[in-house]
């Protein structure tokens, strides 16, 4: 299946992938409204990591694993893997126990502590390519086929 991969050599640490992710998962899908006006700002599903003052940076996100540890750990059955391989969380079923956070070896499930719901990459079902990939100004994120 197609997954989002990260090229750390060309990542400039701009965090635009996170901005795009938040925007895509907002109500308005407009960045200013999403950040300034909407009552609840979504939590980014991708996480930019940096060290040495930005000398190294890269974006991490869900691998949509073939055998998802998050799914195995979920106590409420909120996590499923669909026929296309997408691993998603049904936030109506999630109880916020953070078992998925405990299990995901990629650190790619976030905690929405306000709503007490886990949060993760859904590969932007409304788009051809995930928003983070489209937003990356230096093509440090790619959406392509890979085994894991």
């Amino acid at each position, binding site marked *: 299946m197609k997954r989002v991969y990260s090229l750390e050599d060309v990542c400039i640490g701009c965090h635009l992938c996170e901005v795009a992710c938040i925007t895509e998962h907002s109500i308005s899908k407009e960045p200013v409204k999403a950040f300034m006006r909407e009552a609840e700002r979504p939590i980014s599903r991708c996480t930019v990591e940096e060290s040495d003052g930005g000398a190294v940076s890269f974006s991490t996100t869900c691998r949509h694993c073939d055998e998802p540890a998050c799914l195995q750990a979920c106590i409420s059955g909120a996590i499923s893997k669909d026929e296309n391989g997408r691993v998603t969380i049904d936030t109506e079923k999630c*109880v916020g126990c953070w078992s998925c956070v405990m299990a995901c070896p990629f650190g790619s499930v976030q905690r929405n502590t306000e709503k007490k719901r886990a949060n993760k990459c859904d590969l932007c079902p409304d788009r051809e390519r995930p928003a983070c990939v489209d937003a990356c100004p230096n093509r440090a994120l790619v959406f392509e086929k890979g085994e894991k």
Partner: protein
Amino acid sequence: MNYVIIGNSVAAVGAMRAIRGIDKESGITVISRERYQAYGRPLISYLLGGLINEKRMAYLPPDFCEKNKINLLLESEAVSVDAKAKSIKLRNGDQIKYDRLLIATGGDPFVPPIQGLAGKERVFTFTTWDDAAKLKAVSAEIEHAVVIGGGLIGLKAAEGLHLLGKKVTIVELADRVLSAAFDKPAGRIIAKKMKTNGIDVITEDTVTTINGNGSVISGVTLKSGDTIDCDTVIVAIGVRPAASFLNGSGIEVNRGVLVNDHMQTSIKNIYAAGDVAEASDFFTGQKNPMPIWPDAYIQGDVAGTDMAGGDKKYAGGLAMNSIEFFKVPTISMGITNPADDGGFEVLLYQEPENYCYRKIVLKENCLVGAVLVGVVDRAGIFSGLIREKVDVTPFKDSLLDAGFGFVNLPRDVRNRLFAPQRKQQF
């Protein structure tokens, strides 16, 4: 091929999915003692506390059995297994034949003999939906409940009752709550949080007598001689593998049903997975029952794969728990109470006044355990490092940082995880 699964919780579901991943057609019959479709067992405390309703208990989509052609027999209890005839017998006398059998009956709550317990009406265990339902049904009349056992089940039962506005006292024999999953400081932090919120926690003591008249409870007497007035008792000492129905079957049972790394029991074509099984430990390889939800799923998955002719090996049980108490999240995994002379190295970060604590346990430069209280984000990175046995020497000093991440790992490790799999062009 005819598959039969006894039990209908997470290990059974892991097996059903694994079988259907390989074999789309053969019959799968699932036998459950309970009257519900598969449900999120750990959710019973949420249900008791009114945090979720009955609708949210379902673990699977409503059309799961239909879609996967699962023949689910509810309120059916297997009472014996005849390995020679390859058949099992149900309580109602029915015989069911199998070609491959999975035993995934889980655990039964252990109720020790306590003086005065027999005949008392309001003594409960807390491991099933029905347990929660029974407790909830009488909750209007409960004023003060004593929970015997300060493990996971006891604490969750206490929390559920507390959410209903009941006075709750936990009595734990060890010197702290959650003694299996947590170390002393973490146990104390949680006990303090519970006490601050009005749940009484008594440690290093136990209930010796349940007092009362006839079926009505008036209180309990502790080993220390203290008495506590109460009207309800929850016994939450632990669970034991639900394997007694296998007596006489020839299947080798120690504390649980002994299995190899393919979840095969001592008898061909019979498998076991989940809380009923006794599989190997991730670190030592020694067999021990591990009543851990994610582990049960993995065992079920391994069993189902093997049953359907696939090949998958169990890597060994790794204990892990994620529980939140009064908004303090906690995650623990692996070895959390290392022996002083076991060659372990312990890294600590403590801020108990803010309910914050981090402990990392290392052995031979590999991560073998972690306790996280307060800040638990991205805890799974640690479970990955444990499972992959990554040498942490180059980044050991950063393990306790709240912002610890892949940037701290050697480049080749993180590129293997996140970089494109084609040949890199840079």
